[in-house]
């Protein structure tokens, strides 16, 4: 178990290392570009040369990379060329806001999708199953930007119930309702489908038959026997869906002007804000790597059959 954890951790670190190299390569291989981005359009060639020299950009790429990596590891993430603020100071509040958004979205979609998926998977092929399955295919077919348009048309402009953009620097319930709804609408269907498939599979397992033959009631079969086994897959999938949620978050945050991590990354990309893109990319990758680790661990905890030896199917 410790050995397994150590191997996983080493793998995760190796992935992070490779990612950091890729990110640095893409963004900073051309030092002169970086100088232009940092110093701005009105800078002169001598200024740029000076800046390059001062910041060690005349050294070989690999040396620069290692120094950058060392700084990054120590928490020195550079200064945003657009916002003129240390990246390490800017990121935490943004991440917190996105965390709130994603957390609320999970809070909505997980129970909803579990209930729907279980209802559908409990008795495969019934009308309930077909209705839920079809509804989830439909909702997952509507991209976030489309549902954002539709929902804000209804709730902001037509009914006037909700604000269409986020303006408070802190947190306001009414401002997150729509973003959360859009995120949840798209993901709920997907997760419900996974829950349904998992539930349907579990319902065909011999031990469910055993329970039936014991004289267990349908409720007991579902809650005592099927549920726990059926939820192993969806719960691990939730963790693996975090990167995907992160993508959705970008669209939703941009649309609703929610000042979170997604808008920051989007604007950093548009502004060519090198230090900020690097940090955002690294943070998002870190989030993914950590959630994948967590998914592995969770899977083992939930599933007594596996003792850190095998990974879940499809989660290889």
């Amino acid at each position, binding site marked *: 178990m410790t050995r397994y954890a150590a191997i996983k951790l080493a793998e995760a670190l190796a992935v992070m290392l490779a990612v950091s190299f890729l990110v640095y390569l893409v963004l900073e291989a051309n030092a002169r570009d970086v100088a232009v981005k940092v110093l701005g359009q009105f800078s002169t060639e001598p200024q740029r040369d000076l800046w390059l020299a001062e910041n060690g950009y005349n050294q070989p790429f690999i040396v620069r990379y290692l120094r950058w990596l060392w700084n990054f590891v120590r928490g020195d993430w550079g200064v945003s060329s657009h916002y003129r603020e240390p990246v390490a100071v800017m990121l935490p509040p943004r991440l917190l806001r996105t965390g709130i958004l994603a957390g609320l979205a999970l809070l909505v979609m997980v129970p909803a999708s579990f209930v729907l998926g279980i209802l559908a998977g409990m008795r495969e092929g019934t009308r309930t199953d077909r209705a839920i399955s079809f509804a989830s295919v439909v909702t997952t077919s509507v991209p976030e930007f489309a549902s954002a348009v539709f929902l804000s048309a209804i709730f902001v402009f037509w009914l006037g119930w909700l604000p269409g953009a986020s303006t408070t620097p802190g947190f306001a319930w009414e401002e997150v309702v729509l973003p959360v709804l859009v995120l949840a609408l798209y993901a709920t269907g997907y997760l419900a489908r996974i829950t349904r498939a998992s539930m349907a599979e579990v319902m065909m397992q011999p031990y469910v038959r055993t329970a039936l033959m014991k004289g267990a009631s349908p409720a007991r079969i579902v809650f005592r026997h099927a549920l726990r086994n059926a939820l192993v897959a969806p719960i691990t999938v939730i963790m693996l869906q975090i990167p995907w949620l992160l993508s959705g978050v970008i669209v939703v945050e941009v649309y609703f002007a929610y000042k979170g991590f997604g808008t920051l990354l989007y604007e950093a990309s548009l502004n060519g804000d090198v230090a900020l893109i690097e940090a955002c990319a690294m943070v998002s990758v870190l989030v993914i790597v950590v959630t994948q680790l967590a998914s592995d661990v969770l899977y083992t905890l939930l*599933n007594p059959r596996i003792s850190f030896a095998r990974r879940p199917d499809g989660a290889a």
Partner: protein
Amino acid sequence: MTAIVEITDLHIALPKGADRHWAVEAVSLAVAPAEILCVVGESGSGKSVLASAIMGALPRGLRRASGNIRFKGEEITRLPESRLRAMRGRDVAMIFQEPMASLNPAIRVGRQIEEVFEIHAPAMAGAERTSRALDLMREMRLPEPAAMARRFPHQLSGGQCQRVVIAMALAFTPALLIADEPTTALDVTTQARILDLIRNLRAEHGQGILFVTHDFGVVADIADRVAVMRHGRLVEIGAVEQVLNDPRHDYTRQLLAAVPSLTPRVRADTGAAPALRLEGVSKNFGTVRAVDDVTFEVPRGGTVAIVGESGSGKSTLAKAVIRLLEPSAGRVLVEDADFARLGRGELMRRRRLVQMIFQDPHGSLNPNRTVGDVLTRAGVLGGLAAGGARAQAAELIELVGLEPTALQRRPAAFSGGQRQRIGIARALAMRPAIVVADESVSALDVSVQKQVLELLDRLQSRGGLTMLFITHDLRVAAQIADRIAVMQRGRIVEFGRAVQILLSPEHPYTAELVAAAPGRAWQARRAMASTETL
């Protein structure tokens, strides 16, 4: 005698589009108290459907069309689900083929037994439930019940799981126990112990038992009465002695004739030079030694069977011999070359010398290629020109007893036995020096098994076929092998002529295996009878 359960003229319909109309057709039978009724039949005979019909829980898509099932005089086909629920586990209990999968992997086994009390005796105090469960486990002769109760199913062996399942089934000493192939997935020695347990329980509690099996050996060991089913119909029913010894129906006779006998066939030892020699072959997986220093030889034209229970390393050995796995140590000598040490190029050239017939008739043929393609390609790889390979394919398909038109078809068009014949033809197409057969008949029904074994025998007597035959079934080994190697925990514990191994085993493990072979007593009697009639 009042039957516990009485079935009259039961018809169960298959869904539309199935290959026949009825899963169970016009079946009438009854189980008396303290009686073990064995329902025997090959796959698809409807015996399992019959069993679940009694529990009032038909698989989805199946529907009772007509007929009655009376349990202790009460018609249960019309009972509401709630009444059926109250009966299940209390008055009627059922155990299944896959013991491990029958237990919920996420719940400790003790809790799973206790649950029966929770369901049917909700008033019972928790402490009593626990102690009752432990009692049951003790009764099932499960070691250290208190500790075992806290384990999860995956921490138990298959036999232990089956005992837990039986414990659950017997918690309320039901009047009827339905056992659907309860020992099929278990090793012979374990099977023998479980059969023992069931017999003892019957003696103690006197419940009626409906025992579904495909194995006449098991029938001989356990049944009071036998019902033979075929294509959903009951072809014969009667007392065990009568059915086994004096079958009335042709089909029963056919089935009985196909049951492999423990009596070894006797063949002259040719004394031919060895075609395959293993010297100290070992295979390690990490720190586990799956195959441990195996040495023996297979004479040209002879057959050596490797017998062992699951996990004994016999399949690993087979894979090491044909280099599907790299042996960790030792030599595999084929035509004087060490097959285990051949370099890549040389190995590719010599691959054809060692061929394999695989276990699973469904997995051993590429579903996307026609039989002709498969055989022709094998011929080409065996060194023939394309035309020659095609001609050889046509010859081989006839040799294994299939129509020439089979060449144009894909594997899905064939039954399991036919596929196994194609697999044999493919191995022969390479013109190998030695054929390794890995459990090649264990997935087949007995009648088919018999035909395939006969085919192999015929091919061998036609000359030149040297075989290493891997099986878990001593009876099959007796039918095909000149010599038998008994494997246990990676080691060959005994190696010798088949007759000697089967009749006077030296190693205690061999003796145990021989003793555990189902239906041994019956077979011995049968063998005597057949010698007498000769």
